């Protein structure tokens, strides 16, 4: 593993922390959910209406209660994930309402898209889990989308998946479904299986739905990513350090709530802060500013001793082109080398979170594979230093016929899966660019993928629960 790269000095980290505490204690934050306000009141904090004023001691004591790492359990224990430490978890994009096709046309997302991305993530060597709203299933009634998405995640792969963050009720449904699958609420309370994305309402607020979900998950001992997305220049100041302090304040407040409800709740420090383009106002995520926020977030999370979430294959492009590639590599690499643990949006995102693309998914999967290899760094053992074979070949020879080469190259080198390393004429037979090659590839993967079966009795129970809830909700 490569050492993690820090972009801030220790003094700068301390300054951001102090600024955040100043924001939290002097400006305070608003919580649009009475039960959350009650929790803070009980903790003895100053509350005016829905505005809560924090203290340095409170924040620091609560953040200490959060585990520095935790295991997220999968249906197949081989896919259990440790979140925190040196580990990195890659997964698909989240929340997009559109699919951009290979030719640049755009259409609405459906449940079939959700299933396809779950399968592609299930089949991937580089993506560690499937994720949450990989594509918003707009062909399904809003009331029951969360049920369909969870069931589809379970049926499509045996890797870890995410729960719904859309309010307390949907969080409780997610917990119920997970406990059917894993053998009861007490089992999953001991061994968390769900992780969900809780967002602040920047600047300095949390809304009712997010707080309801946060509280339900914290009570059930499930993991939550507590994230802030500040758009510097519009929902935050046009100042990088100030935006970081604002984001940090919001995340700290969220973590303190989770730890007040259930000390030891597994939390992840989350950031997707970026900037508003100052001409159009649109969010820009494929930017150096975003890479700076990603990098500093990894470092702040380390400072607090909690796992981090940020980054991904982030970009503002509309199609798989050079821009999609260079922007995504910058943000995915920033996340990877600075030590982000949980990389939501690793694969598939186009146009500042507005779209998913199958071709982009495959390109990002390749980048994830490249980065996983990069992160392993060098092997400094005997085979890695290879003195014997260097001596054996001596001046002027070559290594292609050496046993050492045959034995070691697979460990030392990564085999490219999407990149074209052919000579010109071979390539020129079809002249396929990345976009076209990726299109072929995902179609092939989907055609060949066999989802790991779910135990029939469990499946029956899941279906019964979903049918019952569907009736209640529709």
């Amino acid at each position: 593993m490569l050492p993690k790269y820090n972009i801030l000095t220790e003094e700068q980290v301390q300054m951001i922390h102090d600024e955040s505490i100043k924001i939290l204690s002097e400006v305070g934050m608003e919580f649009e959910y009475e039960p959350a306000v009650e929790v803070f009141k009980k903790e003895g904090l100053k509350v005016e209406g829905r505005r809560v004023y924090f203290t340095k001691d409170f924040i620091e004591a609560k953040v200490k209660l959060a585990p520095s790492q935790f295991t997220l359990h999968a249906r197949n224990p081989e896919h259990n994930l440790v979140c925190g430490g040196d580990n990195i978890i890659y997964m698909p994009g989240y929340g997009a309402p559109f699919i951009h096709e290979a030719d640049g046309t755009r259409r609405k997302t459906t449940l079939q898209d959700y299933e396809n991305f779950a399968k592609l993530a299930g089949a991937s060597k580089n993506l560690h889990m499937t994720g949450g709203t990989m594509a918003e299933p707009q062909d399904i009634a809003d009331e029951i989308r969360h049920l369909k998405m969870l069931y589809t995640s379970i049926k499509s792969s045996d890797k870890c998946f995410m729960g719904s963050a859309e309010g307390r009720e949907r969080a409780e449904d997610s917990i119920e479904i997970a406990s059917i699958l894993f053998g009861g609420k007490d089992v999953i309370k001991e061994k968390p299986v769900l992780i969900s994305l809780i967002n602040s309402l920047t600047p300095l607020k949390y809304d009712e739905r997010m707080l309801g979900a946060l509280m339900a998950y914290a009570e059930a001992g499930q993991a939550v990513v507590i994230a802030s997305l500040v758009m510097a220049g519009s929902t935050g100041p046009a100042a990088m350090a100030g935006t970081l302090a604002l984001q940090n304040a919001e995340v700290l407040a969220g973590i303190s709530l989770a730890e007040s409800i259930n000390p030891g709740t597994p939390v992840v420090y989350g950031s997707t802060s970026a900037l508003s383009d100052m001409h159009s106002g649109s969010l820009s995520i494929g930017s150096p500013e975003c890479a700076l926020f990603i990098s500093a977030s990894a470092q702040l999370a380390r400072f607090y001793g909690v796992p981090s979430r940020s980054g991904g294959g982030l970009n503002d492009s509309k199609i798989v082109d050079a821009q999609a590639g260079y922007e995504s590599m910058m943000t995915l690499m920033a996340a990877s080398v600075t030590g982000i643990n949980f990389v939501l949006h690793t694969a598939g995102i186009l146009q500042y979170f507005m779209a998913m693309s199958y071709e982009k998914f495959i390109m990002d999967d390749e980048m994830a594979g490249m980065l996983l290899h990069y992160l392993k760094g060098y092997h400094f053992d005997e085979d890695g230093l290879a003195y014997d074979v260097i001596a054996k070949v001596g001046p002027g020879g070559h290594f292609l016929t050496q046993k050492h080469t045959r034995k070691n190259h697979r460990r030392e080198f990564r085999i490219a899966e999407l990149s074209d390393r052919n000579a010109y004429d071979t390539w020129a037979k079809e002249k396929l660019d990345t976009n076209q090659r990726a299109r072929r590839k995902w179609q092939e993967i989907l055609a060949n993928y066999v989802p790991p079966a779910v135990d029939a009795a469990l499946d029956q129970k899941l279906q019964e629960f979903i049918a019952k809830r569907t009736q209640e909700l529709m």
Partner: protein
Amino acid sequence: MSAIFEELKQAVIDGDEDITAELSQKVLDEGINPVDAVQQGLIKGIEIVGEAWKAGEVFLPDVMMSAEAMKAGLALLEPEIAKLGISEGEAKGKIVLGTVAGDIHDIGKNITGAMFTAAGYKVFDLGTDIKPEAFIAKAQEVGADIIGASALLTTTMVGQKQIIEYLKENGLRDKFKVFVGGGPTSQAWADEIGADGWAETADDAVQLAGRVLAK
């Protein structure tokens, strides 16, 4: 007298709310024609900023602050214009703007509002999480030409449809043009729900309003 118009114009260009308000007060105190102050001062200033934004010479914060400055001036001058019973001149139109129920995304709506202000429209911004009946109540109160509804979530877009349904149910459909916008919306969606206009950007929305209201 034209000196103060020039100063008003400059104050709007500078996006300076305080000076714009001060100068507008001076217009009132000195009995200067408020319509001329609006036309030759405030509007001239905002037009220049709007053009400069299109040309990429100034940025969003410049336009938005100029729009705020202009509003501060109008807040003082308009009551006087109304009192005198004279016409304000060719105000382009009135638009009631808001983000639909269940949705709190407001940056795109705010930008849209500023661009309409900059183009000489009167904008009534209701804020976020707005129910259909609140849009319509405000539109009736101010005699709006356009109702503009922003939605950023696929789950709240239905709020835009509900506005149109509500208008129909109350026999008001032909009273207002309904514009919809926001990330997940599209021309296809606007057609499906029978909206009068959809635009992908705030700038396009203003152009569209010009075309629709000219009809």
